[in-house]
Structures are given as C-alpha cells and as structure tokens.
C-alpha cells in the first residue's frame, strides 16, 4: 500500500478537516445570528425553518424531486405521452404470476419474515446481553456482519448454501449439517421452491435469512440503547413487587421501549420493501424470488433502452405500500405528543 497520497491530495484533506466543519458551523452560527436580529415575537416562527432548512433542501434535491418525477413518469410512456394507468396495468395484470405479482408476493414474505425475525432477534439479544458481564464482546460479535459489505455477505452465504450432489462431500455449511447430522439429502437452498411449513418457499426464506443475518446488529444496537435508557430503579421496583423477569419484560420493559420498537420496526419494514442487494446478487429474481426493487432495477438498467415507464410504476407500487406504515407512525407520534 502506498500512503504518499496523503501528501498530494491536500485540498481534499483540508476540506475534510477544516472545510466541512467550517461550513456547517458557519451555517449554524449564522442562522442563529440572523434569528437574534429578529423581533422577539418572530423568532419562534422563523427559527425552526432555519434548523430544518438544510435537511429539507438536501432531501428535496436527492429524494423528493426524483420521487415526484417518478410518480409523474409512472403515468406516461417512455416518450413522455400520458397513458393513464397503463403502466400499472402492465404491472398488476396476470395475477398471480404475471406482471409484478411474484415480486409483490415475495416482498410480502420479506415484509413479514425479515421484519419479524430482525425485530425479535434484536430484542432478544439486546435483553439477554444486557444481563451478562461480557456484553460488549458478544455485542461486537453479533454486530460484525453489519460491517461486512453486501458483496462479501453474498460470498458468505454462497458458502453456506453451496450444493454438491448427494453422495459427494458437501462444501456448503448447511448441507454439511443436513447431511452429516440429519442424514438427509442436500438441498439447493437458493433454487428450491418447496414450501417451508406450508408458508414460504425455501429459497425465499434462504435469501431472507442471509439478509436477516446481516442486519440484526442494527436492531440490536438501537434496541439495546433504548433498553439502557430505562431507569434501573423502575426495574428494581418491579422486582421488589415480586414480578418475574418475563412479566417485567412484558409489562415494564417492552411498553417503555415501544417508541423505539416502532422506529426500528418502521425502518425494517421499509428495508424489507426495498430489499435488493441479496436478491440481485444471488438469484436476480429467478426461481420466483423476485422483489420489487430488483424488478425495477432490471427495467431501468438491464433493459435497453431503459423502461422508465414501467420501472416508475413498480417504484410507485413500492412507495404506496409504505403509506399504511406512515399512518401507523402518525398515530404513534400523536399519542406520544398527547402524553407530554
């Protein structure tokens, strides 16, 4: 490795060390200076806008305007002609296997299983780890997959799911366990569409499992932080009152963590809707594992010329599914507001 670049790329280095903090500080101090110039009465109505302005500006530029463009595009063809709901018709016709239906079904699997598992594991690990003295070590270990890039995650899970014909020495961890411990024939985890417990195809579950493994550290860290925010005396009081640990969790810990659970849950639901990396790299939607984001990506970048019209319709379907989650959040938000 050659680190001589440290000396040559001076403008960037200076910008990072001095420039960026300076711009941020200048905005903050300048904004407050301006607010202070205002008459007393005007301040409370002006200040919030100064505080949220940079965020709104960036978000508008990078997300809002493209999203609006997408919504507009979803009602047009690729030459900009208004076509009403044609694109949505393309995506939503041919139930249950045509259009986007397979992707919608699989996104539903992701929505349920990914969210549930990540939330449940995260909560379980946060609560259990909170009670052992080597918490930091085990937390770091569970967190480690988060630090692995999605490219490497795919490599890892290819090793987990690797398949050799029956009778051969298995090179995949799962098949080795299945074969060695349970004396069963190896499975092609990523291609097998057999239903698991009559609920979900094995290959979808396999992809979800890989994603869950990679993200549990996320929910664990946030939920653990929330757990530590619960005053110890509340738990002690409950213990003194004779409550068992499970009761304490159910009646004291969980309700107090609820707002955080909602935040993590909402984020995970949205991550599930946007699931892409793992599916793209492992199956690209083959064997009925497609998801909306992958479908959209294919329409955009593996389609020449890019099919913006249909990709936009898929994206709008994806965005629309978020609305119930937002309504739930609004209610939660109002409830917290009312309590204080």
């Amino acid at each position, binding site marked *: 490795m050659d680190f001589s670049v440290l000396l040559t790329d001076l403008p960037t280095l200076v*910008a990072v060390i001095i420039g960026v903090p300076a711009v941020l500080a200048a905005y903050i101090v300048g904004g407050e200076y301006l607010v202070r110039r205002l008459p007393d009465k005007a301040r409370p109505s002006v200040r919030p806008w100064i505080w949220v302005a940079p965020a709104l500006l960036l978000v508008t530029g990078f997300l809002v305007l493209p999203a609006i463009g997408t919504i507009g595009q979803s009602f047009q063809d690729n030459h900009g002609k208004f076509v009403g709901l044609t694109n949505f018709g393309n995506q939503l016709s041919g139930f249950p296997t045509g259009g986007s239906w397979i992707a919608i079904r699989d996104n539903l699997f992701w929505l349920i299983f990914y969210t549930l598992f990540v939330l449940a594991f995260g909560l379980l690990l946060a609560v259990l780890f909170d009670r052992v003295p080597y918490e930091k070590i085990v937390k770091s270990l569970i967190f480690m997959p988060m630090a692995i890039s999605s490219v490497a995650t795919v490599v890892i899970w290819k090793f987990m799911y690797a*398949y050799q014909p029956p009778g051969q020495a298995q090179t995949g961890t799962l098949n080795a366990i299945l074969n060695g411990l349970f004396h069963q024939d190896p499975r*092609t985890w990523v291609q097998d569409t057999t239903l698991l417990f009559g609920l979900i195809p094995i290959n979808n579950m396999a992809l979800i499992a890989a994603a869950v493994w990679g993200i549990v550290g996320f929910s664990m860290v946030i939920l653990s932080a929330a757990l530590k925010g619960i005053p110890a005396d509340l738990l002690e009081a409950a213990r003194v009152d004779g409550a068992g640990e499970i009761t304490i969790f159910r009646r004291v810990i969980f309700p107090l963590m609820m707002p955080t659970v909602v935040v993590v849950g909402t984020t995970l639901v949205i991550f599930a809707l946007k699931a892409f990396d793992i599916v793209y*790299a492992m199956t690209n939607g083959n064997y009925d594992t497609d998801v909306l984001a992958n479908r959209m990506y294919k329409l955009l970048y593996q*389609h*020449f010329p890019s099919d913006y019209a249909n990709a936009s319709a898929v994206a709008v379907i994806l965005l629309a599914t978020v609305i119930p989650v937002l309504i739930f959040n609004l209610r939660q938000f109002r409830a917290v507001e009312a309590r204080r």
Partner: protein
Amino acid sequence: MHKLWLKRSLILSFVAVFTAVACGTSSTQNAGSVKVMATWTGAEQASFMAVMKPFTDSTGITISYEASRDQDALLTTRVAAGNPPDLAAAPSPTLLTNFAKTGKVIALNNVIDMSALQAQYSPGWITLGEPLNDGKLYEVYSWVSLKGLIWYDPKNFQAKGYNIPNSWDSLLNLQQTIKSGGTTPWCIALESGAASGWPGSDWVKEIVLSQSGPTVYDNWWQGKQKWTSPEIKLAWQTWGQILGSGDSNVYGGAKNMAATNFGDGGTPMFQTPPKCYMHNQASFITSFFQSANASLQPVTDFNFFPLPDITSQFAGAHVVAGDAWSMFHNTPQAQQMLKYLQTADAQAIWVKRGGKISPNNKVSLDSYPDPLSKSTAQILVATKIAKYDAGDLMPADMKNAYWSAVLQFVQDQSKLDSILANLDSIQAKAYTS
C-alpha cells in the same frame, strides 16, 4: 440565466471556504487524457493497462480508467446525465447499440482509419459494428473470444480409449459410451448470480447456428424468427439430447446445474474418478480450472475440441463474442487512442499476456503464448461462418428471458412448449420499445 447564477453562487460559496487551499493545484497534462470505462477488473485490468502503457509513453496522453462490473447501471446513468466517458468498452454490444440508436455515440467512420480496418479485419467484425445498418460504424472490436469449446481431460480420454468426436453423431455416440460406462458424460453449471442461465444459452445458440445456419440465427436474434418455430425448437430439443432425459447425462442433474457456479462447472472432470468427461465453455474457463486445481497443465491435463458441426451445410460455423468500443466524446486524444487500439501491435500485447484473441489478421499466431490459445486463434481464422453471440445481440428483456428459460428447461424438459411460447410473448414486446 437563472441556472448560471445558481451555478456560480453555489461554486462561489464553496470557493470562499477553500480559497486558502485552492492555490496552484493545476494538474497540467499537456497531452491531455482519455476517460475510459470498461468491465476489465483484476488481472484483466492489469493487461489492459499494459496495452495502454506504450501509448501513454509515446503520446503523453494519460488514461483515466474506470472499471466496473456494474457497467450497465453506471454507463446508463452517465449517458443519461450527459457525463459519459470519452470511450467505453463493453463485453457485449447491446448497451452500446442502444446508445447508438439514441444518438449518444459518435460514428467512427471519420474517426478511425477505415482503410486499415478493412485491410486488417474480416468483414464480419466490421459489419457487427454497424448495428443500425446505416453504413456507419458505431462499434469497433479489439479482442474477441470463441464459444463452443468442449473441454476434456486428455488423460481420462486416453484411459478409457475415447476419441475426439469429429461429427455430431460421434459426439452423441461418445456420450452414450461414457454413460454406459457408469459416468455422466457432461458437466454443466448454470449459476451466475444475476446472469444465471447464460452458460446453457450458449449451448442453444451454438446448436441453432450449426444446425439451422446463419440466416435462421440472424432472424432469430433480430426477433424475426419465433422461438416456437421448428428450427429453434429443434435446437432446444437437440440440447435436450445432450442433457439426456431428466438431465441424466449431466453430473448432479438439474439441481447441481442450477446450484453450481459456472466457474466451478468443469472441476468435477478432474476428480478421480472423474465425475464427467466433457464441459462446454469459452476459453476463459481455464483460469478456473487452474485455480481449483493448481497442478493442472494445459494440453496434458485439459484440452478442447470445437463443438462438432451438426448440419454439414453449415460446417465451420462458430459463435463468437468480443469487446466492443464506442466513442462518446470526439476528442483528439480519444481518436488517437481508438486508432491505437485497432492496431495489431496494441492487440498483440494482451494476446501475449494470455486470455484474449485478436480479430486483427496482422496479429501473428506466434503471439499466442500457449498451444490452447493458439489453436483457438487458428479455429477463429479458419471459421467460415462467424456469428456474434445471439443473446448479447437481443434486447435485454429477451436476453434475460432467454437465460431464465434455460433454467426452467433444465428443471423440466417436458415444459419446452410452454417455455418457448412464453419467450414468444416476450419477443413480441421486447423489440418494439
């Protein structure tokens, strides 16, 4: 006007902060540079840089090289945003042809030395670069590869007394002989992440070309020949004969084909006893052979024969593929570079490093570093009918559906009719947009 003001103030506000450091960082490159985007990474990237080194040394023009295997997304975005590289090389012309259609790439007729090109390239390669049939050259090929190579382990063949088949029938006989010896004749691996299925699609297009000839082949990829037509259906059925009923001719059957990465596809040939005797793949596969088993040596441990001709009328027909270049900015430096890349000298550099074959007649066969690449080059030179990879010429939707169809076909060959009918329905839409 308004935009200009915005641009200036945006930049000014940043300049204000950085004035202290914005002193004399002028990177003066007198000869200029060329921005290049391609998919060559790893060792291939090193080979490409080796190709460009004499160019930079002599002209002073530097190469700003951007490699990504996400080229589809990256180049599409760059072009749409109005910020494409000067030159781009793609492993398939689909993407570049699309940009030619939308007028994003520059016709090369006045950019490169056409007379030299015509003198040194066989006409097929030049025609391939004129996808719009408007007499304009949009793509030029620098390196190419030959598909339809059947790899085998000569020691295994010798041990069993198998001979290299010289006709389609003898190939079928050989696979029957191997099968009756208790071993599956073939190894096929279809898994390739986002592109899963393509190795099987190679089989089908090679069969189409050799069985039904170039006209059917061209009509087929151009969307004028239905998938359900007798010729195409026959090609799939012929591949079905190779696979055997229930994929019984293939090591591990359908499951293993679907689950095994194409790179690992040939390795069971080298186990003792071998799990299979033959593997159809392009020449790059040798690096995988050697990575999985470092002791393997070309010629003695692995060798190849070309897929035998099926219909004698079309004997010597081969499917080829190659790296196509297109130009997005007509700068003098990019012109110079493109002219350099079409020369035999430039192409020979990579040829010598291994892994590539040159389409340029002036590249001597002696440039090839090993017997295998040399014989590949010989076959290519002798090829009577060279046709570009049909999948890469199809619209992307069609290509993806083609790959998926391969995966479905190996799962259950009896569903061929419905698979082909589905491909027809996609064909009906894919070519119109």
